[in-house]
């Protein structure tokens, strides 16, 4: 039997999650192309751990395991977290992070749809707070330094911490573009000098600018599929770029351009895949705009004036905390109510 045509069937969660994962595929491909097999290893480890933790927690809470494990939400969490990790981080870090994020940030709050904080960002934040050294140790993308690690060397580094003879990690390591700009500026290097480094491409870092462009592509697909409201990424990017633009206009020797901020770090990943999380953000239209705008502002402040190389994770977590509060004060007027309120206001 068919339902009436005006009934809109909600898209099953599985389909939504599949499409989100699909939207991440181009970025994963570009990421792997410029940083090597480590990216795929991190994603695989995160996915396996997240699914195992999910099943374990569901069993503890005596929930049906199969429908919840196969809904794909744990996989998307795992992928988002793995994509924010350095590709050559030791294997146990992503495993611990995935287990904590599913058990602590998701199931302890009541499971799917109940979590206050974005689980992927909780896992990332816990790790960067606990292991700042390992979490900011990135290998340079291929083609920047004379030496690089092939896939077997990468696997050996991730799983055993050893490299083939004659190779040192320092020889292939490099700070991320955001980190480089920050530390070099602290040493009073001029902006044009910094951007002459082989690490930088046309707008962002070599390799990383294409990865962020691939996130943008995936994000546009999500917009086209109407899976995310356009207001969130647009507001977030507008505020991030706007604040960066003001600083850049006032003092271009110390502040990088909006384009650099858009195409570095996790800006695009955050804009389309993390800030748009429907569970941990506000639900009202105005609330979403405020939420995304403040995340954009906080991201810029943490990036430029904070101690961590990128600010998306902390900005998102702080605003997750504020989301219920924003929701409460941005409730749209009930239909027909607004006029009455105005009249009452005029009388008093």
């Amino acid at each position, binding site marked *: 039997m068919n339902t009436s045509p005006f009934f809109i069937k909600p898209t099953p969660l599985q389909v939504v999650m599949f499409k989100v994962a699909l939207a991440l595929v181009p970025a994963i491909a570009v990421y792997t192309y410029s940083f090597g097999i480590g990216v795929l290893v991190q994603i695989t480890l995160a996915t396996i751990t997240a699914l195992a933790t999910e099943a374990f927690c569901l069993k503890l809470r005596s929930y049906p395991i199969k429908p919840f494990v196969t809904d794909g939400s744990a996989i998307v969490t795992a992928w988002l977290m793995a994509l924010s990790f350095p590709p050559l981080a030791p294997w146990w870090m992503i495993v611990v992070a995935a287990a904590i994020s599913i058990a*602590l940030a998701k199931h302890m709050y009541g499971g799917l749809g109940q979590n206050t904080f974005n689980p992927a960002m909780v896992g990332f934040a*816990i790790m960067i*707070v*606990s*292991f700042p050294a390992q979490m900011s140790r990135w290998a340079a993308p291929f083609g920047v330094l004379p030496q690089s690690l092939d896939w077997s060397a990468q696997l050996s580094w991730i799983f055993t911490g050893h490299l083939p003879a004659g190779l040192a990690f320092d020889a292939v390591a490099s700070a991320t573009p955001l980190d480089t700009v920050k530390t070099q500026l602290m040493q009073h290097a001029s902006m044009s000098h910094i951007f002459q480094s082989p690490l930088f491409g046309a707008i962002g870092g070599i390799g990383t600018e294409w990865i962020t462009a691939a996130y943008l592509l995936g994000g546009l697909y999500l917009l086209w599929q109407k899976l995310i409201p356009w207001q969130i990424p647009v507001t977030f990017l507008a505020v991030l770029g706007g604040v960066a633009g003001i600083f850049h206009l006032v003092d271009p020797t110390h502040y990088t351009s909006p384009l650099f901020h858009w195409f570095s770090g996790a800006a695009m990943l955050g804009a389309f895949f993390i800030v748009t999380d429907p569970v941990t953000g506000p639900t009202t239209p105005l609330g979403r705009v405020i939420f995304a705008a403040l995340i954009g502002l906080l991201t810029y402040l943490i990036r430029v004036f904070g101690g961590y190389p990128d600010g998306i994770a902390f900005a998102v977590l702080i605003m997750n905390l504020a989301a219920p509060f924003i929701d409460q004060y941005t409730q749209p007027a009930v239909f027909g109510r607004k006029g009455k309120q105005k009249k009452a206001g005029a009388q008093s």
Partner: protein
Amino acid sequence: MMISRQEVRDISHNGVWKQNPGVVQILGMCPTLAMTTSVVNGASLGIATALVMACSGAAVALLRQFVPNELRNPIYILIIAAVVTIVQLAMNAYMHALYNVLGIFIPLIVTNCIVLARAEAFASKNGVIQSGLDGFMMGIGGTVVLAILGGIREVLGKGTLLSGIDLVFGASAKSWVIHVIPADLNYQFLFMILPPGAFIGLGLLVAGKAALDRRAAEAARRREAETSTPLAA
């Protein structure tokens, strides 16, 4: 001024379990969260607090007839502050290393709201012995929570137990430190040592206590049902 055995049992049960300051009343959170980076830190601050609470409870009960109702809070605070000063000076003299580690949190016992809460809620209405016992048992309840929370954070954060025990028992106690995770692995998980670890650990303890209570209540109900069914039938 006597105390019956039943009273001792009730006051002790109240302090250690039923109204535990750490996981039921959630009072005195500042030291609970800040000083529980290891078992030794947590337990020693807990014992110091228990001593203060026992003495201040007895003192407040002793003086309660002479304290004008309108001025009771400042007077209680003065009494507590006097006791804390004694404990502080004694620790500085006999356990100087530990005193240095606990630092500002020893004088801050004055402002620990569980101390004033018991003076107000119990000692101002009960006898000297009862009040002293109540303060001590509340302090022990807090100490247990501080020690367990300290243990959780120490094991997960540093992989050891009883680190810093030499601050209490002298340098010869250094070998008492238990390395749950072998020392040569250089294990460290900073998150548990930092404040978020304290909040998460305390949250788990509160939940754990509630779960145990619920299980006990269910068991009691089942026992009751078992004993009452033959009568009903």
